[in-house]
């Protein structure tokens, strides 16, 4: 499972969508189960909230 690369035409929302998705991919590669994937209905702030959640999970994973 690999992440998404940004493009020059990406909007702020598209970029946050890719950031959130990429960090969700990291959680899956780390074997963290039950982590909700970013949704197409997520607002930009939803994506930021999920990204903060994903990065917090990875942080705890790396600092058990």
């Amino acid at each position: 499972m690999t992440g998404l690369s940004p493009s020059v035409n990406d909007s702020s929302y598209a970029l946050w969508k890719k950031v959130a998705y990429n960090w969700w991919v990291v959680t899956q590669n780390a074997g963290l189960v039950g982590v909700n994937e970013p949704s197409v209905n997520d607002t930009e702030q939803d994506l930021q909230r999920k990204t903060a959640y994903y990065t917090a999970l990875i942080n705890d994973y790396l600092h058990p």
Partner: protein
Amino acid sequence: MSAQYPSVNDTGYDLVKKIANNTADIDLAIVSDVNSVAGTANQVLVNGGTAAATGNVTVSLPTALTAPGSLTVTTTFTLTAQATDNGVLHTNGSGVVTSTLTPSGLTSIGVNTVSSAAASTLILATGTFGTAVTFASATGVPTFAAGAVFTGALSGITNITMAGALTGCNSVTSVAGTALTLGTGTFGGAFSMASATGFLTLTGNDAAAFTTPQIWIQRASGNTAGLILNATGVQRVASDGTTASGLTINGGGGNITMGGTGTVVNILGNTDATTGGAGAVTLSAGGLYALGKIISGSSFTSGTPNGGTSGAWKFGIFKTSTLVALDTANWVELDIGGTLRRLALITITTP
């Protein structure tokens, strides 16, 4: 810094700030905990590497490598020398290096030898083995160099070839029902069994007759005695002296020789030798044959003369006198060739 989770009241700014904090902390975990991963092309690729590592990898760790799970290698696991801690495989405290390594046992994964470097000591355990330690080889024999120390009993060894001294060993025994052979060949040098404070005891079997000797001292050829007592002072071959059992020296088909040039042979009986019974020094019916003179410190008593009576004799010397007269009343009995003879006596007339 701990992980910062989002809350329902976080603004977009708050969330981005938490994301920044978390990613910074993640960066520390990934990069800062490992100061550097040194390598060249075709090794571990970091910071933008995109190709898989296919060659040897050298990792320089500033501190310990902690594996959260098992550490698995698919080929040889090599511990190389370091400046201060040369290739030591440590276990932590009561850790054990077992023979349950995958697939099973050290040998099966190709480790045929556990050895130390030249001029270094290989210590299998500085404490105590929890159970028996087995040194086994299907094709060779285990070898212990001089200086090897065993603080407990060694068992199950059927053959020992000594290259060095065996010191500090309190007991060498065989398995019950099995003979203990100290050497099936020839000792290269002197074989000494010594005790500074006690006795050397050789215990044989219970064979009663001396024709089945209990303890053999053999010599393949030559005429040198098999048992030589070589010490200062009185040396003795004796029975224990506490029972009625005697000491028999049996020459078999050969002679028994005692003494040498300048040597006195003492045969000690008790003080009553008149009967030839208990306590006497008795020669067999074969008699006594002396190449030299026989000197008695006391009298000589022969068997009873034919038809006469035996008595103790003491032989004197040749004497001369002009006052000799025939004793017409007394005589001396003497058995010559089985015939009793009578020797006349004289008297010395007192002037």
